[in-house]
Each structure stands twice: as structure tokens, then as C-alpha cells.
């Protein structure tokens, strides 16, 4: 099977969908002729033409607003927001319109829009190229929210998102574009070819939205994470020699409560990890849900480890990032609590 990094996998997903469905269109800043600042849409305009892969003005709100109208008129738009940090100008169109259109029109109108956006830190991006705002979107009913952590999942989930008749906000953990990353910036970069899920079929396939994945079986504790933090969790568990079961949430909305809670009921302990700021982050919902469902099986408080409740500072990138040290400390606390 071919090896792909996450950029290639995402590109392949879009290539396939542009070819399969004449109603699929792409739009976003610098995505066309240039191929995107992360090169995720490289070559697509050349292949499908500038009427299918549109360069747009720099106006995220307008991009989503126009995509909604396109969706209502039978197209299946894939909009790119260049960085998740720049999605806020589109909040009103996402929250008030995209998420609610089907509901308010009793199913008569809807817009199958996918919004792709790179998120997360670790690329020296400072406070406006490092954010993880996924938690905000999970509170808005009517949109699905996903984040892959491997090239294989990235491609399968993106195809599933484009085909989904509900709107999807698709977060791409940009630090994973070129390889899995366990949070230790001093180690040499690892390419995707070293990872089993760097093997990606050429053709069409989907990874269903709404299903978490157990990426490591274990019995001592359940670690719940997504995106970059999967690898940090793996590294931390390994460093401590703890037999952790690690779950990649993948789909925040809808959330696969079953997979997560089944695991926690088994292990009795749970640590939740994300890069986003901790307070009111998606970890809070995970913790609350797990606590409600698994209370009687819990042997220790559910732990949360996350970014600090500050912006992402340029000079302190690695002190900010919830790396292996912080996760290991939190894991230890969860294991030792009694």
C-alpha cells in the first residue's frame, strides 16, 4: 500500500471526491493556484480547473456564507480556513446558519459544507497560529466536529465528511502533517512511513464519523485524547511503563460514548488530554460524561491535562505544550490516587 503523510492523504481524499462527484467544490484563501500554505490542496486546481477549486478573498465569514449558499444550490463545498485561529470571523455563519439551517427549515434546506482547518501548536506559530478551538464548536448543536490523528484516518474521515449531508468542521492537527509527534521537540522528526497508519489506500474509502478508536489496548488506565496528544499519551504511558488503554476520540460530535465508557468501566481510571486551554475545553465534556456513566467503576478521579489557560506564547512553546512530562505527571497522579 502507498505511504502517505497527512498532507498527501488529505489531498488524495479531495482529489477522489472532486473526481467522483461533480458537485464537490473547494474554496479558500491561497488554495487554488498556489495549492495552500500547507500544500494540502496542491495540484487540485490544475487538475479540476479554477471553477471547482476557487481562490477566495481573505474573508472567512464570506467563505462560509458563500459555501452555505452553494450547498443550498446542490454543491458540496469544502471550505478551507487557513488557520483555525482565523475561524472566528466565520462564527456567526457557522453557529447561526450552517448549524441551524436544517432545523429551522424543518429539513427543507440544508448545506453539506465541510470546513477544513489546521489547528494546534508546535510549529513556532505563536498565539495566532497555534490555537485549538475545537471545544467551542462542540457546544453548537447541529455541526459535527472531527479531528484525525493519522494519514489513514485523515483521508477516510475527510471523504466521510464531504459525503455527509450535515456540516462538518474538520480539524487538522498541523504538527502531524509530516509525521507523528510525541511532544519531545528535541528528538529528530519521525516520518509517517514509520507508522502503520501511514499506509493509505490510493482509492476511495471512508472512516465513519462518530466512532472512536482504541489505538492501544491496555488494562491499567484509559487515556482519552485526539490529534497530536495521542502520541504524547503513548510516549508518557511508555515512559512510565503503564499498561494504558489509549482511545483516539476522532469524532467529538457525535461522540462515541460507548467505546470510551466501556474502556473506563474496565480500567477504572481515566486521564483526558488535549492541547486546547483546559478551562471549559472539550476535556470538560469528556470528563463530565465519563463521570456520569462510569461513576461506580471509577477508582480515582478522572484527570485532565491540557494547555494552560493562557494564549500560546511564541517563546514558551514547549513549556506551554502539554508534552510527555506533563502528561506523565498527570498519569502518575491518576494511577496513584487512592
Amino acid at each position: 500500500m502507498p505511504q502517505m503523510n497527512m498532507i498527501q492523504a488529505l489531498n488524495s481524499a479531495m482529489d477522489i471526491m472532486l473526481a467522483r462527484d461533480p458537485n464537490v467544490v473547494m474554496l479558500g484563501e491561497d488554495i487554488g493556484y498556489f495549492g495552500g500554505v500547507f500544500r494540502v490542496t496542491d495540484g487540485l486546481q490544475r487538475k479540476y480547473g479554477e471553477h471547482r477549486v476557487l481562490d477566495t478573498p481573505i474573508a472567512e465569514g464570506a467563505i462560509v456564507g458563500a459555501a452555505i449558499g452553494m450547498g443550498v444550490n446542490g454543491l458540496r463545498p469544502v471550505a478551507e480556513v487557513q488557520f483555525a485561529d482565523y475561524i472566528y470571523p466565520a462564527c456567526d455563519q457557522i453557529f447561526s446558519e450552517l448549524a441551524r439551517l436544517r432545523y429551522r427549515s424543518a429539513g427543507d434546506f440544508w448545506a453539506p459544507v465541510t470546513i477544513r482547518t489546521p489547528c494546534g501548536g508546535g510549529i513556532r506559530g505563536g498565539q495566532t497560529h497555534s490555537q485549538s478551538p475545537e471545544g467551542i464548536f462542540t457546544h453548537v448543536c447541529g455541526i459535527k466536529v472531527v479531528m484525525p490523528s493519522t494519514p489513514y484516518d485523515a483521508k477516510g474521515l475527510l471523504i466521510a465528511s464531504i459525503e455527509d449531508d450535515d456540516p462538518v468542521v474538520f480539524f487538522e492537527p498541523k504538527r502531524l502533517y509530516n509525521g507523528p509527534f510525541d511532544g519531545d521537540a528535541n528528538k529528530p522528526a519521525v516520518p509517517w512511513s514509520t507508522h502503520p497508519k501511514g499506509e493509505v489506500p490510493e482509492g476511495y474509502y471512508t472512516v465513519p464519523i462518530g466512532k472512536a478508536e482504541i489505538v492501544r489496548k491496555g488494562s491499567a488506565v484509559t487515556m482519552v485524547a485526539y490529534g497530536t496528544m495521542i502520541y504524547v499519551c503513548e510516549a508518557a504511558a511508555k515512559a512510565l511503563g503503564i499498561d494504558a488503554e489509549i482511545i483516539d476520540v476522532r469524532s467529538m460530535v457525535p461522540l462515541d460514548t460507548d467505546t470510551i465508557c466501556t474502556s473506563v468501566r474496565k480500567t477504572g481510571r481515566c486521564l483526558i488530554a488535549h492541547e486546547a486551554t483546559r478551562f471549559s475545553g472539550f476535556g470538560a465534556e469528556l470528563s463530565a460524561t465519563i463521570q456520569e456513566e462510569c461513576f461506580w467503576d471509577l477508582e480515582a478521579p478522572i484527570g485532565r491535562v491540557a494547555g494552560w489557560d493562557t494564549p500560546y506564547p511564541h517563546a514558551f512553546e514547549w513549556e506551554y505544550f502539554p508534552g510527555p512530562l506533563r502528561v506523565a505527571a498527570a498519569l502518575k497522579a491518576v494511577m496513584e490516587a487512592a
Partner: protein
Amino acid sequence: MPRRSRLHIPQHHSRPGEEPDFSYLETSPAGAVARPDVNARVRDIGNLSVDLVRVLDDNHVAVGQWNPHLEVQDLQIGLRHMLLTRIFDERMQRAQRQGKTSFYMRCLGEEAVSVAQGMALRPKDMLFPAYRNQGLYVVRGRPLVDLMCQLLSNTRDMCKGRQLPVMYHWAEGRIFSISGNLTTQFPQAVGWAMAAAIKGEDDIAVSWIGEGSSAEADFHHAMLFASVYMAPVILNIVNNQWAISTFQGFAGGEQRSFAARGPGYGMAGIRVDGNDFLAVHAVTQWAAERARTGAGPTLIEHVTYRGAAHSTSDDPARYRPKDDYEKWPLGDPVSRLKNHLIALGEWSEVRHQALARELEVHVTESWKEAVQYGTLTDGPRLNRDLMFQDVFKEMPEQLRKQREQLRTEQGV
């Protein structure tokens, strides 16, 4: 306050207790503005965004190049639609006062905008209205009963009880869902039009916002995308002079017409007498042809007046003179078209009265039928399970559980 502020504050022209003063309004004589080719370059037709396109003169005669030369029958249909819209509005306003619905919004004085435009467009053109465009539903023939059921949130409500009254939609009729959030439909209409162009179809999109709503970011989004991609769209600003309590100066109308935003974005802009059925029809036809032939989008500013309160929750006596609507220099759209037809010898006061009675009966009959399907307060009521549908195409587990929880809670 002691400080000498140098900030300019837009000044209302007349306040409660004062004489209505419309001296600020710049108009052009009927027939005075030339009609350019629909393919004219934006830079050559800047005057259209400053002058005021008018067709009906003070003697009720249609004059000038913009006269659309409509058939008498169409004029009579237009009159009927406008009158029906007005009578419907009055009756629904009463229904709200009687507690049958929670809310209502009239379009008194602005009927020509929706009716003339609706008639100038093709049935497959897609409409993205604001909340004061009920005339579009009348033109496209949606049964009043259906609209009333929406107002009543009853068992036949097209919105399944989810929307505030007047937030209609009609997929087959190609009228988009109304949001409570102002202006959001404007860039959506542009996106719809872009899709039509991408697909090589020649339907156009048309959208409406109030002049107050033109302040929102989505106005700019729509203008920009329409201009950059030359989208086949007509963007309308209905300048009825008021946004709840603030007059149009607070939306930027003090310094320049709203139509002038068009040329600013490299787009045709037309300022039209919004109470002149013929003029509205004519500029819409022009803009539709321009859009359909790929010559680009048009921004139309309709200069009109909000005759009634903003909504049933509003009390305009707090911020404007009581009799201001009667003093509005551009008159009333229904009377003006009526007088034109009378001047043509194709209408009379007697026929007008008869028509009004007929439409009143129609509205009353429709109402009687609608309330059978329930009102907000009296049954029959929609099934509460509907509350959980359509959040997503398929109901996720979580909502299924919440539905069960509600059933238990209500002891069903």
C-alpha cells in the same frame, strides 16, 4: 457633559411632537433618469446610484425610459398582490393583538418592493428574503393558510414549530428560510448564485436586507464576493428609513446613498423610488437581465418608508412623529398604482372597494381554516418529539435519549 466633543452624531430630522421633516430626501423627477444598456460598464453609470429612478409622475402617468410598459393585466395583478399583502398584514397584526400568535411584522408602505420584484423575476430564480418580504409569497402563490399556520406554530407549520412567526420558507417555491440573524442571507445568496454560475445554469439569486442591516459584516461579504466573481445576483437594500428606533443616518445614509456602495465595490448600483411599482419592476428587470447575461451583479436601494411599527413588540411613538408616514414625500405604493390604473381608465374606486372586500373575505376564510390546525395556545399541537428532529439528518443517540427523557418527564 462639560467636554467639547467633536464626534459627529447623525441627527434625526424629526422627533415625537415635531413636524415630520423629509427635506433631507434627495429625489429626481419621474422620467428624468436615463436607462443605460444592461451591459453598461459600472464606471459609466455612477449616476444611477445617486439619482432616483422614478416612472410614475404626479399625474399618475408612466414616463421616461424606465417605463416597463407592462400589460394592464399585470398592473392589476400587481395591485391585487399588494392589496392582499396589506390586508393579510392587518389581519395578522390583529391576531397577534388577540394573543393568537406571539409576534408579527408588517410591511405597510413597502408592498411594491416585494410584489414588483417578485413579478419581474422568473419562477426558478432563488429568493433570499428578509422578514418584511411577505409579498414574495403572495406573488409566488403560496396559500395564505400555509403562512398563517407558520404564524400559529400549529400542526401544519412548515417550520414544525421551530421558528418565530414570519420566518417562513418554501423550498418548492424557491424562497429561502429566514434567519433571525440579520443579513446572513446576503452572502448565502451570492454563494447560491456562484453555484448557479459554476453549474452553467441561468437562474439568478435575489436577496433583500433593510438599510439598517447593511451595517452588518455580511453586507460587505456579499458585495465583495458578488463583485469579485461577478455572481448572477441582485442584492437589494430596502431603505425604509428606520431600523427599529434609529433612522437611516445611523446606517451610513447621511453621507451618501446606500446604492453608492455598489460602484464602490465595482458593482452597478441603482437608487429607485421603492413606492413606485413601475420603477421597481423596471430596475429589477434591468438587473435580472444584467445578471443573467453574465454582466454582473447589481445593488438596488429601494427608497421607501416603514409605515407601521417595527414589529408588534415595538412602539414607534417613542421615537418618531405619529403622522410621519402620511407626510412621506414618495406616497403610498398601493394608492400610486391604483391611481395610475384609474388614470389609464383601467380601474375605479368601486372596483377597488370590491377587490378589497373580496381579499378580506379570502383572508378571513384562510384564517378560519388555519386556526383549525391549532394556535400557539390552543390545540391541536405539534408532537413534541419533533423538537429533536432535523438537528442532524439522522438523530444521534444523544438526542434519542433526550427525547426519551422528555417523554418520561411529561409522563407520556
